[in-house]
Every structure is written in structure tokens, then in C-alpha cells.
């Protein structure tokens, strides 16, 4: 099973991958540069994805919008989503949980490696 990492910033993607690799997480990580690309990846590969790490602020289709669509699609609603975002105000957190009551985690950027790992580990098999 694979992890889908959705973030428009290359630097942020590299950082997240390094944190996960260093911690010995062996799952393959698929990268998407934005919501639109994530939609395409999910549509064909959802059966192989065990976790989505999702940035909020992205051009075109944002993370919160992608998530709003995912929760309405039965095949996708079961995939756990962790938001990894700089938009980590309490209001935004509330909005994210309103959109997806089963949100698997909310990690604010910038994060310490332990924070990301703690959020991710329960969902890896």
C-alpha cells in the first residue's frame, strides 16, 4: 500500500519524504503537485493508497476542496486523510473537521519530524 502526498511546494514534499524515509517507513510515496493531479491519481489508484497527506493551500483545487469531494465518494471516503498545512488556525481546523468528521489528523507547518510521524504511524500497515 502506498502513501499519497499532495503538496504544490516541491520543498515541502521533499521534506516530508525525507522525514518518512529516515524513520524507516518503507511504503512507496506517490506525489501530486496539486488537487487536480491528486484527483487523477486517486481515480485510478485509490485501491492501492492507504493514506493521504494533504496540503490545504494549493492553486486551482485546494486540499480542503479535494477532501470535500473525497468524503462524498464511497470508494474514497474510507481512505484516511491527514492535513499537513500552514493554515493551522483553530478556525481552519474546525472547518476541516466539519468537511470531514473522520479526518485522521491535522499537522501544522512547520512541523517537527516526530509530529508528522506520530500522525502517520497509526495508519501504516
Amino acid at each position, binding site marked *: *500500500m502506498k502513501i499519497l502526498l499532495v503538496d504544490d511546494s516541491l520543498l515541502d514534499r521533499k521534506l516530508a519524504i525525507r522525514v518518512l524515509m529516515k524513520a524507516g517507513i518503507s511504503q512507496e510515496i506517490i506525489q501530486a503537485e496539486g*488537487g*487536480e493531479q491528486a*484527483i*487523477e491519481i*486517486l*481515480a*485510478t489508484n*485509490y*485501491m*492501492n493508497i*492507504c493514506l493521504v497527506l494533504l496540503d*490545504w*493551500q*494549493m*492553486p*486551482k*483545487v*485546494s486540499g*480542503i*476542496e*479535494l477532501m*470535500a*469531494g*473525497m*468524503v*462524498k*465518494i464511497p*470508494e*474514497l471516503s*474510507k481512505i484516511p486523510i491527514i492535513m499537513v498545512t500552514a493554515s493551522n488556525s483553530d478556525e*481552519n481546523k474546525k*472547518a476541516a473537521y466539519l*468537511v470531514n468528521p473522520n479526518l485522521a489528523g491535522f499537522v501544522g507547518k512547520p512541523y517537527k519530524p516526530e509530529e508528522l510521524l506520530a500522525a502517520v504511524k497509526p495508519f501504516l500497515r
Partner: protein
Amino acid sequence: MQEENLQPLDLMKFKEIVRLESSRLGLRALSTEGETSFTLALALSAAVKKVFYEKSEMIFSAEPALEKKAITQFVHKMRVDAMEKFNTTTVFAAIQLAFNQAELEKQTCLLTLIVYMEQKFLPEFMRLMQYPYIDYDNETEVKDGCGTLVNLIAGQYKREMTVLGYKDLMMSPFESYINTSPDGVSIPKGMTEKYELSFEVEETKRLVVELVSLDILPKLIPLEKRAAKKVLVVDDDLTNTKLIESFLQSEGYEVIVAHDGEEGLKKLKSRPDLIVLDVQMPVMDGYEFILEKKNIEGANQIPVIVLTAREGMVDMFKVEGAREYLIKPFQPAALLHSIQRCI
């Protein structure tokens, strides 16, 4: 979880669900991109199309390309090098819009409109607009010609905005230039956004319009809520009608669908406020439909928006009273704007 028989998802449907859900929940506002200033840019694109549709024989060969651009600015002036747009001698003219005359005089405008055109193409444009022939060796005449054009476009843009429910704005006299403006063009003071719209005639870029506006502009001139209206969509393409239907419903319209002209005529009984009409259809095509519609009592004044893949078709429909046209493929938001202008 890893079962072999799991099927890929329908991509179009997935995208549509994302779009519908985010508009239902109002999530766009929580995102980075200002949908609202994009809306203003779309209204401008519609205004330009309308100026030419009404005044000239000319139809653009594609839906205008709309791009968000960065601004190089200094002290509320924008650096302008018109040569970048066409690579040849280029004439351009700018106009500012503000709340009132006093604001204009203080140079605290809300938005700036700039129209760029090749010098050699300008006389052709003015002839199409039924203006007297311009001597393009005479710099003043050429500059004035471009000024006239920006005046027409800005005037129409103001009307588009009031139709959309925004306040009526005041317009400054135009300023025109050739190639480069050494001191730049005045733009609003504050955080601004720039959109560039490119228009093609016979598949060649012939006209560029730029919009520089305050990013908070939509909040300054608020939009009113509109009432629910009935739209009849006549198109044989099922994917198309599904998309238009769900999009318009999410925007609060009642939608009736017909899959050819004959069915469309029958459904006129439900008294739609507007018709969105495809051209190529089996049984009865869009052209026959618009001709037949004239003979039906009470149906003649229902506005029609024509959807077509070929710009050449538009003229025929214009003669028969079509109000607006959209060239496929178009942005759903562009359709919404056409509808808002018609009803």
C-alpha cells in the same frame, strides 16, 4: 482492501463532485485563489466580446485566454512594455475606474483597464467597428483610435458589472501610448491583481486586454443575490447537458434539458426564462430550432445563448436574434456570466 475487482473511478464525475461540494460548502473562499477577482476578469472578457458582437461583423475565433499575471510596478504605476505582447509596434490605451469623480481626481482608482493592439491592425479593427478609416501613419490618429476602443470596452464593462449587481463606477478619460510608457500606467493603490486576456481573430492573437484591480474589490462593491430562473438546455451531448445541468443547479437555477431541437420546441411550453442552444444536433439542429421558435407565441423574446465549436456559425444565429455565444470548450463560469447578463 486490495481487491482485484475494484474499478477505476469516473474522472469527470470525481472532478464534478469536488467542484459541487466545494461550491456548496463555500470552500473557495477558504482557498488561496480569489475566485471573485477571477469573476471580474470573466465579466471583462464578456464585455469585450459583446462590444465586437454588437458593433462589428467580427467574431473571435476562440474563447479568450485568461491568465493571471504578475505585476512589475513602481509607486502605483505599472511598467508597461507593449512590444512584449505583439513583437511589433504596438499601441495601447488605459482607463481608470473609481467610485466617483473626486476619487478619480485624487487618483485613488479601483481598477485599471489597458487595451493593447498592433499599430498595423488598428485601422482594420476600427473599420470593423464602423468607425471612419484611420491613417495609421498618423500617430495621433492611431492613439485616438485605441483610446476609442478602450472607451467602448470600459463602458460595456461598467454595464456588465452593474448587471452583475455591482455599483456603477466612474470612468477617467483615456490615456494612450505607443510601444512603451516610460512613467508607467497608473494602477490602484494597495494590493492588486492582474489578469491578461488575449483575443484571437482568425487564430492569430490580435487584441490583449489587461485588468489590474484591488484584490479586495469584490468586497468593496458587493454582489446582490439573484432569484431562481428557469433555463432550457438544448444539446444532444449527454455529458455536456449533465455537466451544465448540475453546474447551473448548484448556482440556483431550475434546469430543463432537451436532446434535440424538436424536443426543445416541445419544452418551450414550460416557459423557460432563457435557452442555452447547441448548434449541431440530430433530428432538428440549433439553427432550425431558432427559426421555428420565432413562430411560437410568447417564445420569440426568450433570450438564446448559442454554444458552438466553430466561430463561423455565429453570424447566422446573430441575424436570427441570438443574444450571446460561447465557443466550445468554454469555462462553466463563462456560461454563468452569459446567463446573468441575459436574465
